[in-house]
């Protein structure tokens, strides 16, 4: 047990950066004065404290995270959509390479074919929010400029949500017989993640909250 506690304390010291090394020493020193039965929980607590301390600069409670973390978020939220959109649209046999004859020959005769091709076209158009999001996100990472336009933000958030809902409803009436609206990983990656990231970019455009936040008359 003492070995585990010792590992916890070492881990806490490692987590706390150089500027908090005194606190790491304080925790370690105090550990020597804690009762035997409480030592392990004390050591675990020190790890929790260190994690909180490491997290604090990134999370000030208002989602104003570091730009490096934001870079990861942007790549994670817009990267898959951008890649999927570009392959789906431009790669062989991407949508852009479909001729009207192809559509008439391969899609329209199918049950729900008109719905499928309509959703493909709509997806190709709406999917452009992927590269737009990537651009806006990287602009924030590099220049610190968030998504200031509320109208643009609302459009970027609302459009994929609207397309999803319309697609689900239209699919029930005009889609293939086996069509069932479902929230799957595709919806999560191509709709939820980009929407969340756009919302975050809009949030970052708000002026930072003053240090004193609760109003008391």
């Amino acid at each position, binding site marked *: 047990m003492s070995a585990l506690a010792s590992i916890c304390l070492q881990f806490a010291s490692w987590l706390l950066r150089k500027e908090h090394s*005194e606190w790491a020493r*304080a925790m*370690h020193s105090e550990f020597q*004065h804690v009762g035997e039965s409480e030592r392990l929980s*004390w050591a675990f607590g020190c790890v929790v404290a260190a994690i909180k301390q490491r997290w604090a600069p990134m999370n000030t409670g208002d989602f104003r995270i570091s730009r490096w973390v934001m870079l990861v978020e942007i790549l994670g939220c817009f990267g898959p959509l951008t890649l999927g959109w570009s392959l789906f649209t431009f790669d062989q046999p991407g949508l852009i390479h479909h001729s009207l004859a192809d559509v008439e020959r391969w899609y329209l005769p199918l049950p729900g074919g008109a719905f499928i091709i309509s959703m493909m076209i709509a997806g190709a158009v709406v999917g452009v929010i992927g590269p737009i999001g990537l651009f806006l996100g990287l602009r924030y990472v590099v220049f610190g400029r968030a998504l200031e336009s509320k109208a643009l933000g609302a459009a970027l958030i609302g459009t994929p949500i609207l397309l999803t809902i319309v697609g689900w409803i239209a699919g029930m009436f005009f889609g293939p017989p086996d069509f069932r609206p479902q929230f799957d990983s595709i919806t999560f990656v191509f709709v939820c993640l980009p929407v969340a990231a756009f919302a975050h970019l809009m949030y970052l455009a708000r002026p930072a909250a003053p240090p004193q936040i609760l109003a008391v008359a």
Partner: protein
Amino acid sequence: MQRIRRSSGQTLNLLRALMDEPRKWHHGYELSKATDLLSGTLYPILMRLSDRGFLEHKWLPSQEAGRPPRHVYRLTAKGAKHAVEQFEISDEVGAGPKRSLSRA
């Protein structure tokens, strides 16, 4: 209208423990016992109070032979003033110090 941040119940508990004997130096384990705060909650609050200039700390030799020196804490004058303000706010809004909030 004055705008001021209200401390969490946990921070209030800690401030009360420190204000019970404001000139005395308190060590972490003692504060943990007095406030029922575990080390994972206690130290982040201590660090935050220290960063904001509300808390001073130093090392004191242990009174027990063979034990390492202890890191001890007490409120600064600014910290004591802040504590009093927080107690007043707590009384005004009716949130007792025992009430646990999510953030300090």
